[in-house]
């Protein structure tokens, strides 16, 4: 067991999708592994997410936790420049915003890196033969 941590983009821990209604965007963040969920709950705070979207000047950021789905839902108000009928963005829905969030840096204990998606990920089937100690 080591206390060393590495910093990786959120997409190594989670996936998500953006939805929109008017000038409000919602972005789901769904942990790839239940063991990673507490890291997200601790680090993806409303304040941290609001700061990550500061150039979009959110008027309010609300987080809803859904531990039963190892997921959380962020609701960002005022980030769509008026929304689908008003914004001048090519992406008036803000569909791409989930990937802006998924690029956010997250600190992960080194011992948990086999749970991270991408290179060196160990699938649940393979973990039976290669147990992970966390």
């Amino acid at each position, binding site marked *: 067991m080591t206390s060393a941590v590495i910093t990786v983009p959120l997409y190594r821990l989670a996936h998500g*999708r953006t939805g929109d209604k008017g000038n409000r965007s919602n972005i789901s963040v769904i942990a790839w592994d239940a063991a990673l969920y507490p890291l997200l709950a601790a680090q993806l705070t409303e304040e941290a997410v609001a700061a990550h979207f500061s*150039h979009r000047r959110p008027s309010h950021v609300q987080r809803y936790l859904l531990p*039963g*789905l190892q997921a959380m839902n962020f609701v960002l108000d005022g980030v769509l420049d008026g929304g689908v*009928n008003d914004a*001048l963005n090519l992406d008036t829905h803000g569909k*791409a915003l989930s990937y802006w969030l998924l690029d956010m840096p997250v600190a992960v204990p080194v011992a948990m890196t086999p749970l991270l998606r991408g290179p060196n990920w160990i699938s649940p089937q393979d973990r039976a033969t290669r147990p992970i100690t966390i």
Partner: protein
Amino acid sequence: MTPPASPALLIGCAAGFSGDRVDAAGAVVDTLIRRGGPAFLIFETLAERTLALAQLRRRADPQAGFEPLLDDMLRPVLARCMRHGIRIVSNFGAANPLAAAQHIRTMAQELGLPAPRIAVVSGDDLSGQGQRALLRAQLGAAVDDIHMVSANAYIGAEAIAAALDAGAQIVVAGRVADPSLTVGPAMSHFGWRADDWDRLARATMAGHLLECGAQVCGGYFADPGYKDVPDLHDVGYPIAEIGSEGDCVIGKADGTGGCVNLASVTEQLLYEVHDPAAYLTPDVVADISEAQLTQLAPDRVGLRGVRGHARPGNLKVNVCHEGGWLAEGEISYAGPRAEARARLAADVLRRRLPDLQLRVDLIGALSVMADDGGALLATTPGGDARDVRLRVAATHANRGAAERLGREVTALYCCGPAGGGGVRTTLTSRLNTLSCLVPREAVPASFEMLEDAS
């Protein structure tokens, strides 16, 4: 999960928006027939803007204003659905459900089918003079200052269920809430009351999973190396098996690509949800805060734990109105210092068009992640992107003022930075939206059977 007390109701969805694939229904209908039992086919084809565009088409032609792809979507499967007792429910009536119903009746005649019993749901359209006072009470004088194109309330499942109870084989609606396309059939089939909140909420979330078509089956999901989806080119459309308690299992059409797994279903479950404990619809307030998903088999995911609370007293109304003109122009720069030349061109345009608030995108360097105000662009240091397409956009109430943007972008050919090419300009009329709530009692939704033409 407890086994359902009666055979599950199958509801397949063959469209998730206006403009969705028109060849999706075939595999869904084939699967419904193969599995047997009570089954419905739904098409969800209405987004906020779609209805306003439909209303504009209806103004130009009183027989238009329904989903333009209705024929392409329905004709290939109508005969099979009627032969096998698969009933059809859709909002493809858009701004003119009656004309859509008449079109379907003609389609059936052309296919040599017996005349189907077609119900037309109405009540959602609030654009008439008779409803102006209702809207004014909510939106104030603003409603008199706009050029209104459409005004529609999101109505619920009751009129759909009543039409099905009355024997409709096809229900054509306009602006009903998307999940209501599923709730209506479930209410009618199982005989649920309109205040059976838990069951309505469960069917609502089944409808929510269905309403975007392939989005729950691996569509709008793939991300190579992270979320790999088999045969995305042939992604399947979803089928929900709904039990008598409203719990559902989501699957997809047989023999199609895509995937239905915990990841794809969770993304869709939370899509366009705000407070998970209070997903508001005209039928019920659904609560998924304790919801659970289970992978029951490959491409089969069960949803349970959804609860319901009493439906809201108000209905949401969207009012679309003319919103001036949107002007856009693009020009490409490539090779050494391409980004610097594109940024210089943007600066030229800002100085030439001081009356327009320009949105600037450097496609290939920084575009959709940025903001209309240009905050991110202003704070992002100039890079060395070598293939950049400059895009500028602005709106103006006056057409002539908006047109100047396109002319100035075109003039960059001779007057702008070196090496610019591929100018494209567009000018489009805009539609803006106002939203409000109106008391449910002010919007009496109902249905009528299309009279037999024979």
